């Protein structure tokens, strides 16, 4: 397998007042295509910052980030937005659905960034909702859905444009155990059946067990825990 995304000697600092806080000092990481990686670590270890760098929603101060053979750390904001739209699916802890839109419309949001005709968009939305088994809830608004259903809508939104990589930030952090297992099972299915590369940040060791391997992040450095 070849690396889908690579971080080479990445540095990242935050400024808090006059104090400069180093998050990463020369972090290196490679995630293979089709991998399902869980990233664990204590609060403040840099998990979310890492996810932001991998998803192009934050910029590194040094080093290079290569996605599918192409450096993305030098992209302009517009280039990054376009790259995220076609390459990355995001799944958040609190679902982050638009309350004014129905489930189907929420799923359709990423397709508004494509040039697909309306009919094709509808088909893709139906397929995505079918994969997460929520076809019957297409016209429901988020407040009419349970937490687990909302997260499944969020997964459908993440996969509807067929991105290569899914980034999940504590995707089960707000769910009960059974629902969490359902969601994790769906992610596992997407990885195994559809070949999606998944990087999941989690505090939950149970959730991490669904991944192919777990990386432990502490003080800006990795230690692989399981394979």
């Amino acid at each position, binding site marked *: 397998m070849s690396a889908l995304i690579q971080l080479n000697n990445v540095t990242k600092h935050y400024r808090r007042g006059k104090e400069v806080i180093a998050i990463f000092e020369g972090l290196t990481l490679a995630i293979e295509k089709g991998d399902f990686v869980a990233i664990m670590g204590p609060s403040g270890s840099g998990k979310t910052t890492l996810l*932001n760098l991998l*998803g192009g929603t934050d910029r590194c101060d040094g080093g290079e980030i290569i996605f599918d053979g192409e450096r993305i750390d030098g992209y302009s904001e517009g280039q990054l*937005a*376009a*790259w995220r739209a076609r390459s990355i699916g995001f799944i958040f802890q609190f679902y982050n659905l638009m309350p*004014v*839109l129905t489930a189907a419309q929420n799923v359709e949001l*990423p397709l508004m960034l494509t040039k697909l005709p309306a009919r094709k968009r509808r088909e893709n939305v139906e397929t995505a909702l079918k994969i997460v088994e929520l076809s019957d809830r297409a016209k429901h608004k988020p407040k009419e859905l349970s937490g687990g259903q909302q997260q499944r809508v969020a997964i459908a939104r993440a996969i509807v444009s067929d991105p290569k990589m899914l980034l999940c930030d504590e995707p089960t952090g707000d769910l009960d155990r059974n629902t969490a297992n359902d969601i994790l099972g769906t992610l596992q299915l997407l990885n195994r059946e559809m070949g999606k590369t998944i990087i999941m940040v989690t505090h939950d060791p149970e959730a991490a067990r669904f991944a192919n391997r777990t990386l432990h992040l502490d003080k800006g450095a990795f230690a692989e825990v399981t394979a």
Partner: protein
Amino acid sequence: MRDFDLVRKNLFRKPLRTILLTVSIFMAFLIFGLLTSLNVALDRASETGAASNRLIVSNKINFTQPLPIAYVNRIAATKGVTGVTHSSWFGAFYQDQRNSRFVGFAVDPETYLNLYANDVRLTDAERKAFVTERTGVIVGKALADQYGWKVGQTIPISSNIYVQANGRRSWDMKISGIFTGAKPADSTTALYFHYDYLNETATFGRDQIGNVAVRTASSDLNNSVAKAIDNVFANSPYETSTVDEKTFGQAFLKQAGDLNLIVTMVVAAAFAAILMIVSTTLVSAMRERIREIGVMKTLGFSSPRVLRLVLGEALLLSTMGAVLGLVVSALVLSVLSKSPAASTFGDLSMSPLVALSGLLLAITLGLVTGAIPAASALRMSIVDALNRR
């Protein structure tokens, strides 16, 4: 789903808030539509029938003050003058002083019809009848239609200024003709009757007139003729002020004050208030949605596109309020224009220019009120937005 659907759904996420904002904007545009149309109507009315080579001579103190009738011949003798006539405001009403007032002048029929031949159109027979019948009156078509008057009918026309020697406030007048204007849209809500009839029967104002209308040989001579006339009567008990007909019309119609200034100030005040209310509400509405904006950017919506979506909401809001306000004001104006009391203002309908100005104002309002939330959405970093709770 299109961007417009997203804009619409976001705008109506809190329907009550959106309705209240729309009503505020509606009120501002209602005021704009009514006052601006009134102002335009006044300007238009002052220009209607105004000939470039006609001057109006009135009392220098105020055009409501009289002039001696003897001035007419002296004015006619001024170099450059090719015709003169005179008219006197009668304060006319029919039966009910409160609800049936209209424009009425006592005139010298022959010279008046000569000077205003293009504006007061009669058949030859009507013209002849009016000139020869001492109690004759000619009425505008709109006025005649309003009261169902016919040629040959005798009608009592009252005055809120003059009284007859016998104590009556009304004069019996026989309709000699019903006149039309030069264009179908011209106002025909006035009446004209013999000055001699008034002069012989009224208890006061004998041999006094309201103003003198002068036709010059050419509009190029207007200034010199006006100066010459005013010089003739300088230092007399009745000094004159001579201006072109359009200027006089504007002064007559704007007796209440500088309507342009009043309208501008009222509309500006209304819009300043709306600007504050809408901007503040949109800024606070955007604060509630910072996280959603962050999510959209994360999904790949570019900052310029997010800016367009946010500005789109402000534009849709202002356009909705504006269109409602302009439509309702156009309806109110069309109802008002049918009222006889509004005849002084001429055509009260909303002009396309006023409607277009309103729409441009709506777009400006939308852009200005949406500028702050849109700019903050544009600048917002994804990390900061997603960290908001």
